[in-house]
């Protein structure tokens, strides 16, 4: 588990931060909403995703 965490998860995290991606919308924003529109095709109930 430690190997996966420190050699896979953590580097991906650094790369994401360098690229400026705010994955979980953690940053405060100056827009007038935090709602996220739900778009895209509806997920089928057959699927687990």
């Amino acid at each position: 588990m430690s190997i996966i965490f420190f050699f896979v998860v953590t580097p991906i995290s650094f790369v994401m931060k360098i690229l400026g991606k705010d994955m979980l919308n953690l940053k405060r924003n100056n827009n007038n909403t935090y709602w996220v529109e739900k778009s895209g095709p509806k997920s089928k109930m057959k699927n687990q995703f």
Partner: protein
Amino acid sequence: MVTANYNSPYDVWRPDYSYTGFCSSTIYLHNFLVKSILGISAFYHDSAATILIDGKIIAAAQEERFTRIKHDPSYPHNAINFVLNYSKLKLSEVDQIIFFEKPFLKFERLLETYVAFAPKGFKSFCKAIPIWIKEKLFQKKLLFNKLTEHDENFKDQDKIFFSEHHLSHAASAFFPSPFEEAIVLTSDGVGEWATTTVAIGKGKDLQIKKEINFPHSLGLLYSAFTYYTGFKVNSGEYKLMGLAPYGVPKFESIIKDNLIDIKTDGSFRLNQDFFNYATGLTMTDNKFHDLFGQNPRDSKKDKITQFHMDIASSIQKVTEEIIVKLAKSLKNEYGLKNLCLAGGVALNCVANGKLLKEKIFNNIWIQPAAGDAGGSLGAALAFWHLNQNKERVISNTDDMQGSYLGPEYSQKEIEEKLTSIGAKFKIIDEKSLLDKTAEDLSKGNAIGWFQGRMEFGPRALGGRSIIGDPRSSSMQKNLNLKVKYRESFRPFAPSVLSDDVSDWFNIDVDSPYMLVVANIKDSKKIKMTDDQKKLFGIEKLNIKKSEIPAVTHVDYSARIQTVNEKTNPKYFRLIKMFKKKTGCPVIVNTSFNVRGEPIVNTPENAFNCFMGTELDNLAIGNCYLDKKEQNSNLKKNYSRNFELD
């Protein structure tokens, strides 16, 4: 011989099986045109199962009631067996089985969270990932294996479907409601990604329009404060809510300036610098503790102080502000006059009461099983209407049947069980039972009331209730200390005849599921003296606030259940009898269990709770029991049996 019985709930030929209380005298023949759906929620908290037949809710129950483990998250083997038996179906005969959420999406959220926060979260990663791989990535296989234990002829994995968590909540809120169209707001800790969603329901259609995603969550915010004040997460939130009126919201601006950014439309963002729940093993971190100046309360050693009451008051006020802002902006945006609510946050009945008072919407309907147990119901309904495209049949009450969807026991079963465990009881007809119970209530007795089908959802609604006289000043203290063995600040709630509710409380709508709080009418209040007005915190507890002090909280509020004759005739008649004797159409209704234990399910559970507490009487079916007549060897001490939740 086979005959049709079109009075049965699902238009099939049905057997005579007196043990469930069904009164059908026809012989069963499985109707192949009947469509049955089994909904399941499991593996996080409050596992449950629901069965629909031709889109009608037939039975639903939470696993905890069978295993006696509160909020039991494990696969709901017993609940599934119950709903199948009740419907006289074998699992292989069920057409579809639907799980309430999508495990792969949940797993994806977990991974992305660790990526977002790394290198923080190492400990939690090591602990969580192996479990989640097993439970989430292989959930379909896991479910299938468990399902085969019910019926060796069940072999078809293709019958298993997966709803989405918040769609399940939204469906549980909209489809049973009496509305043709409505705005549906769901809010909880977290599902797969979403924590808060808005959907529009119209006829048989339901579409989620927008959402707020993890880690920004009203449910997790409230749970963080639940943890901080020393109550258990995912079960103690309602205690935080009950504590709030003892305090003042002096930390409100600290919360709004530091922890949460709330937009005008009510949407919000939580500052993760102060929370640990994303990747840690606790809810709050040291920055949070420094902000308020204290560490989290250790419930084993630390008492609840004025500080905790003020914290509770502050977070309750912020939560209410968010919910009201959300409601107002959604009304402006979508213009519909009906609102439906579900998700764990919808159990915050004080916030619901504020919402009602604001009169933003003409009508509000809240799913009684608003938490994850209701996800089993919602998933099944979502499948029926959205996947199978079936029309809704909308009634002008709702489809929940009073939420009396669980097991019931025949008079014969009750008598046999009570006899086998050594209980001493009288068998009396219903009229005498109502008379005796009402009489003993008026004398101040605490009575266990076990009648009909068990409730689905966290509230007891006169199926499995402990009842008392609300006019008694000592009832709240006695019930807390001698019957429920719980914290003495906890208020009790009233059941009131629906026709009389507006004479006693500031509410003019039905509240059949105890999900709304309203104040007692001014005419029923007792004015405080100047000295009493100066009291703070827990000292307020002992002031007699109204003519029905046992159900009046320190701020004059009450969590109301309106009782309708059609929905629960026996309970209605009992309260009517009590009104006849006393002039008061209100009784105390608290759930039939001791602290930390799930609500009782079987006659044996009921007798054990009766003998393990200082309940005076037990009215179970047509059997009436007096504590004084029982064998004292059967007495148990339940005061320390279950951990406080």
